[in-house]
């Protein structure tokens, strides 16, 4: 079977180097051969495809843009092309990789001590250890600064108390990056190992979205960790927000992949499905309008992702640009999923096709890592100088 040919209306590929294309080729072939054949089953059964982890580690997908500790040291555009292809497979799988890479490996790499890096990064890179990122709490989502989780110093240990919610990979993680306030009310990151007494994880059931990804709640009840588990170089909300900028960047590319999968499915379907006088539905203006809208938005989203990637490589990106990328691309992907679902008619609702899965997944992606509207407020603050969150 021939693999996914890609979606490229504006000769986007002419922007890419040979190496960038090779990276995409690897991720693309992996998704075509290993993910697509199994993902509907995993999604239906609500099971994370854990068997893919070692191979993803070997291929270098975890922490791909980090340097050292066995990481590949890819450029941001190369890393983005990986998340694009992974999310063309499934947003849940891409979420797993984003969390492992941007929300666990990145903070250890950027804020961790040498000992923490030595201990965790090589294992996380290989997928021998899994990680999760605990910021959101039941009462604090868009406003994580209000978090209630506390870390109290007791001699050479910290005692953590609090609850985290909606944590991707929470119950399967070997190490959790937990954000908590110390007694001076400043947010710090702590590495909490699986099995630490007082640390409990349970799974959220009944999800209609990201079913192939694990989502958990975490509870810390007098959970003691050694003081050296504190991430020494992160202080205040900018610690976790720095991680989110990394993850949001990957999501901006990932959403393009989900949109491509939906668009490609709808295009093929529209050319073969016949109604009225035995003519393909693609021959109708109303259907063409939807297809033309999608390919236009996908092309714009690709260019935005590429440009932000280049800025990031040059060290010239600030979080508000990444907000625009995440906001625009996830919105456009969700719209593509809805229009594609429409084009497939009744067939659009069953999991013989990928569309409804992507659509449901994208509802989570629209919300997590800063909701769509929160990104509007971030951009709004940037251009007006006036924060409008309150």
């Amino acid at each position, binding site marked *: 079977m021939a693999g996914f040919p890609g979606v490229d209306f504006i000769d986007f590929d002419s922007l890419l180097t*040979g190496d960038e294309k090779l990276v995409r080729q690897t991720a693309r072939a992996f998704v075509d051969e290993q993910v697509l054949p199994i993902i509907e089953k995993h999604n239906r059964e609500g099971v994370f495809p854990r068997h893919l982890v070692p191979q993803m580690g070997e291929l270098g997908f975890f922490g791909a843009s980090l340097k050292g500790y066995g990481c590949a040291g890819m450029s941001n555009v190369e890393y983005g092309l990986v998340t694009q292809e992974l999310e063309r497979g499934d947003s849940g799988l891409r979420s797993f990789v984003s969390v492992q890479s941007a929300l666990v490996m990145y903070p250890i790499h950027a804020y961790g001590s040498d000992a923490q890096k030595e201990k965790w990064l090589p294992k996380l890179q290989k997928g021998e250890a899994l990680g999760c990122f605990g910021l959101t709490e039941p009462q604090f989502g868009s406003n994580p600064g209000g978090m209630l989780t506390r870390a109290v110093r007791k001699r050479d240990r910290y005692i953590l108390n609090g609850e985290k919610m909606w944590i991707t990979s929470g119950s399967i993680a070997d190490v959790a990056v937990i954000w908590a306030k110390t007694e001076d009310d400043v947010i710090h990151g702590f590495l909490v190992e699986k099995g630490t007494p007082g640390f409990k994880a349970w799974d959220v059931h009944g999800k209609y979205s990201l079913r192939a990804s694990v989502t958990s709640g975490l509870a810390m009840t007098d959970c003691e960790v050694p003081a050296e588990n504190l991430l020494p170089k992160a202080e205040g909300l900018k610690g976790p927000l720095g991680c989110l900028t990394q993850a949001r960047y990957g999501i901006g590319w990932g959403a393009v992949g989900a949109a491509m999968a939906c668009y490609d499915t709808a295009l093929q379907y529209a050319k073969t499905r016949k109604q009225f006088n035995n003519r393909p539905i693609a021959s109708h203006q109303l259907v063409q309008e939807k297809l033309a809208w999608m390919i236009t938005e996908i092309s714009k989203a690709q260019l935005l992702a590429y440009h932000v990637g280049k800025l990031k490589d040059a060290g010239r990106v600030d979080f508000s640009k990444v907000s625009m990328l995440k906001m625009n691309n996830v919105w456009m992907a969700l719209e593509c999923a809805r229009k594609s679902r429409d084009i497939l008619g009744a067939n659009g609702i069953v999991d013989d096709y990928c569309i409804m899965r992507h659509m449901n997944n994208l509802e989570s992606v629209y919300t997590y890592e800063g909701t769509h509207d929160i990104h509007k407020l971030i951009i709004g603050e940037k251009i007006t100088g006036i924060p409008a969150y309150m």
Partner: protein
Amino acid sequence: MKIVVCIKQVPAKDAPLAMAEGGAWIKETDIGFEMNEPDAYALEEALRLKEKHGGEVIAVSMGPERSKQAIKEALAKGADRGIHVADERFYTLDPLGAARSIAAAIRREPGVDLILTGLQSDDQGFGQTGVLLAELLGLPHATIIMQIDVADGRMKLKRELEAGWFQWVELPLPALLSIQSGINKPRYATLKGIMAAKKKEIVSVVRAELGVDEPATQHIERIYVPHKSKKTEMLTGSPKEVAAKLVEKLRREARVL
């Protein structure tokens, strides 16, 4: 073992092909290119032999500048270095011309133990380059190889014949083998492999400077898209008769049974 793998870059499988002016080749702008799939199996076999017996794998590709990408892919998957035989008009070469040029490039490499090629190229499909290359280099060769066992400077080779038959042959080294597609499962290039390939050497030799510029003995007159004609034939008779006729047609005309 010092192993040379010959790798061609061909138009991507899904590329929308258009004829170039003159009608003897396709328009190369606006389409993507990829490693010839049969060659990917040869490369994988070379890498596995190296992993088992040590040595080095050299990827050789002839073609315009773009064909370096096929070499890069080979390097990213684990080949040690590359040789690019540069020729912007290489599509005008016939298989003999191609084999002569590649032979001249390989002769510059002392001590090659084994040369591997794919069975054929996915674009022109002559399937001759490997065999001609062996002849020009004076090497023993075998084709349609399904398994390679190397021991004591000799190889035991499994060849695929028709109708599910196989044949075992023995060959001394050095030699040339054309690898059957499907012999293995080619690996993906890892991201680290892609990074490492940036530091590996690709030597370019200009084909015109190899001293093998003899006129082609064969050239492409015209290529064209076959006319699609739909011919519907109604089979009549009882269901039993129709089924028998259908089976006959599938066997004799469509040749799918």
